[in-house]
């Protein structure tokens, strides 16, 4: 990581810096390993979050198979928490499914962003990528692909696979640990509030722009005003109101700029 003292010659079209040259020279195997090492820091967040899901879901009344069903088949933390919360509110099944899917709508956006980089992948490879497309694997890959646009398809796929392995497998294992531990945790500690705190902690750093703040504010206000509706229904109205607000504010601020 030490800066090189000699000035490097600039090549006309592609200013290949050190990192770029290194990335392009990687074999798929090395790219896979690189994906692994770059993903490791995210485990600091993923593991406690997964343990918490296991504990909260077990406390809510799910058995270990169901808890694992969520983490293996859905593999999307925020929506898993949403579904469990609405389950313990005894919301109607359809409302639970729609709300949890709404939380995952952003993944369609991830899918669209990755397409230009992974267009040539086989159907089978694309299916695996879709399965493992979580916030962190997306953020890492798109950053890597945009930073090194001349990577080959095999290098891109291997990098993604490294991240997916390191992030998705521990998610499942740590969920299982949480579900098993969940029984041991006394009922009287205020675990009901673990979910609100976790979600608030995820949202707060996202409030970067006026549009984000406006979306959040409208969604909260609407959710509180609509809280008298049958469980979960207020969310299905409040969330689109917030999203529309964010979009409108963004369009306005862009128009001015």
């Amino acid at each position, binding site marked *: 990581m030490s800066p090189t003292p000699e000035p490097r010659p600039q090549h006309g079209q592609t200013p290949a810096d050190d990192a770029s040259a290194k990335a392009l020279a990687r074999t798929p195997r090395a790219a896979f390993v690189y994906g692994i090492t770059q993903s490791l820091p995210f485990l600091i967040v993923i593991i406690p979050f997964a343990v918490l899901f296991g504990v909260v879901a077990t406390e809510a*009344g799910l058995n270990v198979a169901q808890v694992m069903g969520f983490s293996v088949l859905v593999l999307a933390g925020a929506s898993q928490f949403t*579904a469990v919360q609405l389950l313990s509110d*005894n919301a109607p099944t359809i409302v639970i499914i729609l709300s949890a899917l709404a939380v995952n709508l952003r993944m369609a956006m991830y*899918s669209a962003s*990755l397409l230009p980089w992974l267009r040539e992948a086989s159907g089978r490879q694309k299916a695996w990528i879709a399965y493992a497309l979580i916030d962190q694997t997306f953020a890492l890959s798109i950053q890597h692909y945009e930073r090194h646009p001349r990577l080959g398809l095999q290098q891109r796929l291997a990098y993604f696979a490294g991240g997916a392995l390191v992030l998705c497998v521990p998610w499942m294992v740590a969920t299982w640990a949480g579900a098993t531990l969940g029984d041991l945790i006394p009922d009287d500690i205020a675990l009901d509030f673990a979910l609100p705190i976790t979600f608030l902690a995820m*949202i707060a750093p996202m409030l970067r722009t006026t549009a984000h703040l406006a979306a959040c504010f409208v969604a909260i206000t609407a959710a509180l005003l609509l809280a008298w509706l049958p469980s979960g229904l207020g969310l299905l109205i409040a969330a689109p109101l917030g*999203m529309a607000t964010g*979009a409108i504010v*963004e369009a306005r601020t862009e128009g001015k700029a």
Partner: protein
Amino acid sequence: MTMQASEFQIWLIIVVLGIGTFLLRWSFLGALGNRELPEWVMRMLRYTPVSVLPALVAPLVVWPAATGGETDPSRIAAAAATVAVGVWTKNVLLSIAAGGSTLFAMLYVLG
């Protein structure tokens, strides 16, 4: 409140949610290919997390189930600490730690 959902209902939710989530992730990579989404749709999608999650959480903060729906100063303070530290540090774990310790400290002090 205790969960009333049946075993079948829970598995139905897991499986449908699993398939639906997979289809969302697969959508453009797989089926939609080159089709461009209208700009306003992309704009709205950008704001799903900051809309859905706060809308889900707000009633839980203001009227917690654990107190029978009565507003609780400890939980409000914990939520405020979480958001404040999150906005300030942009660090999810620090923010959770701040919220959790505020909650337990307040519950301890207020008995």
